[in-house]
């Protein structure tokens, strides 16, 4: 949500602040989240592991980075080739946000798969996850729009989001590795 909010800021220099800017951004985010949920769910049916979960975070973080690096060039190219600012802003938000948001959307269903251990409790786990992620979105929106934009440049904020995702990814992967080696050690001990 933080990124979505900054999306308006990023597009404004090229496509203005008309209502259709928000139309484009919200459309692209909803569209890519829906695909993300679908793909994330599918992915969670085979070889589930915390490492794979961490990789989703890692990829999300990496695909967010081009926004800070090349958004100017990308938007300029679109601005020149598409005259109508409605379709221009739609194309630009597609180019900038479609892929990272798909990957971010994969996190929710994958989390459900990892956290559900008992069929009876699956509804409760999903409920808690929705609670956490939507509350997080609300906080991300308000903190970004009320405070972050006052103190930091847009790129610095996006970069921080990206780094946070990457760090989360690494934490998940390392945690998985550690617990596996621990398991191997303990199973090894039993065998001995």
């Amino acid at each position, binding site marked *: 949500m933080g990124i979505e909010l900054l999306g308006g*800021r990023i597009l*404004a*220099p*090229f*496509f*203005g*602040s*008309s*209502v259709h800017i928000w139309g484009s951004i919200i459309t692209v985010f909803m569209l890519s989240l829906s695909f993300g949920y679908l793909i994330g769910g599918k992915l969670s049916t085979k070889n589930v592991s915390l490492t794979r979960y961490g990789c989703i975070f890692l990829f999300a973080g990496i695909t967010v980075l081009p926004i800070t690096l090349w958004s100017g060039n990308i938007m300029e190219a679109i*601005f*020149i080739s598409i005259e109508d*600012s409605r379709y221009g802003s739609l194309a630009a938000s597609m180019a900038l946000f479609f892929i990272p948001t798909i990957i971010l959307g994969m996190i929710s269903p994958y989390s459900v798969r990892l956290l559900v251990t008992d069929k009876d409790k699956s509804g409760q786990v999903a409920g808690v996850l929705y609670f956490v992620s939507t509350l997080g979105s609300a906080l991300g929106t308000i903190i970004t729009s*009320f405070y972050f*934009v*006052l103190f*930091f*440049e*847009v*790129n610095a904020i996006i970069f921080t989001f990206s780094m946070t995702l990457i760090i989360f990814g690494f934490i998940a992967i390392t945690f998985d590795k550690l617990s596996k080696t621990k398991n191997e050690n303990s199973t090894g001990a039993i065998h001995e």
Partner: protein
Amino acid sequence: MNKLFVICLLVTFSNVSFAKVIHKERSLYRNIIVEDNYNLRCLKFNVKTSKTNQSCLYIDDPQKLVFNYTKLLFSSLLLLDKAPESILIIGLGGGTMSNSLHQLYPQATIENIEIDPAVIKVARQYFGFFENDKITSKVQDGRIFVKRAAMKKQKYDWIILDAFNGDYIPEHLLTKEFLEETKSLLTKDGVLSANTFSVSDLYAHESATYKAVFGDFYNVRNQKNSNRIILTSNNSLPSGEIIIERVKKLSSSLTPFGVDIAKISSNMTSTKEEQDWSDNTKVLTDQFSPANLLNQ
């Protein structure tokens, strides 16, 4: 005692109850209200207070300008060595500026850019905003227009920035990048004037941004209200003598509009002599522009 009471009553009511709303609509961007108060017709955005008047005219004397800031904008002519041939106005309001400039310079082309089609409609219907082959209006975000115009290498002698949303100037029209793009549209001796009324923190940021792009500029103020016209030129600012000379030349042609150019020129201060913000103020950019948050 009774007399006093009646007078009090009259005073209170004369201010409020005679304003009649003659048009009200909700556009894509805002509420638009047109209100008649005796001889005065005003365009308002959002709420019904006098602070939010965007544009006003005298119903029986539409030529005479009501607002100080519109009068102050004429100070731009003191920076031009000849009559402007092409004028760009970003932010239409009631279209009174466009009308007045057409009367003053019938030969000049005037392009009005306005984001809200409803504002253009209301300007035509209630404020006598007129268009012909010289005066045009276009529905577009100011920033996009400027970018496209720069690509087409269009040039203007005089650019007026007068775009406002409910709070203040939209953030993407306050940044260094925007001002640079706009500057590239000016002819060699072209002039840009911006209507502003920033307070507190934003005042310094806004000033620093204009200075970063244009160098020293004139602040044109009027003691009566808080508007400040930022007056900049693509060329260097003219000397005091030249300005005095131009005041003499212009004063009679501006009187019909209620503009006292001699008085206005005495309220012009150059930032070269008087800079009222600190040198290390952060410039507003597309990356950093929390304008509406600062203006509180």
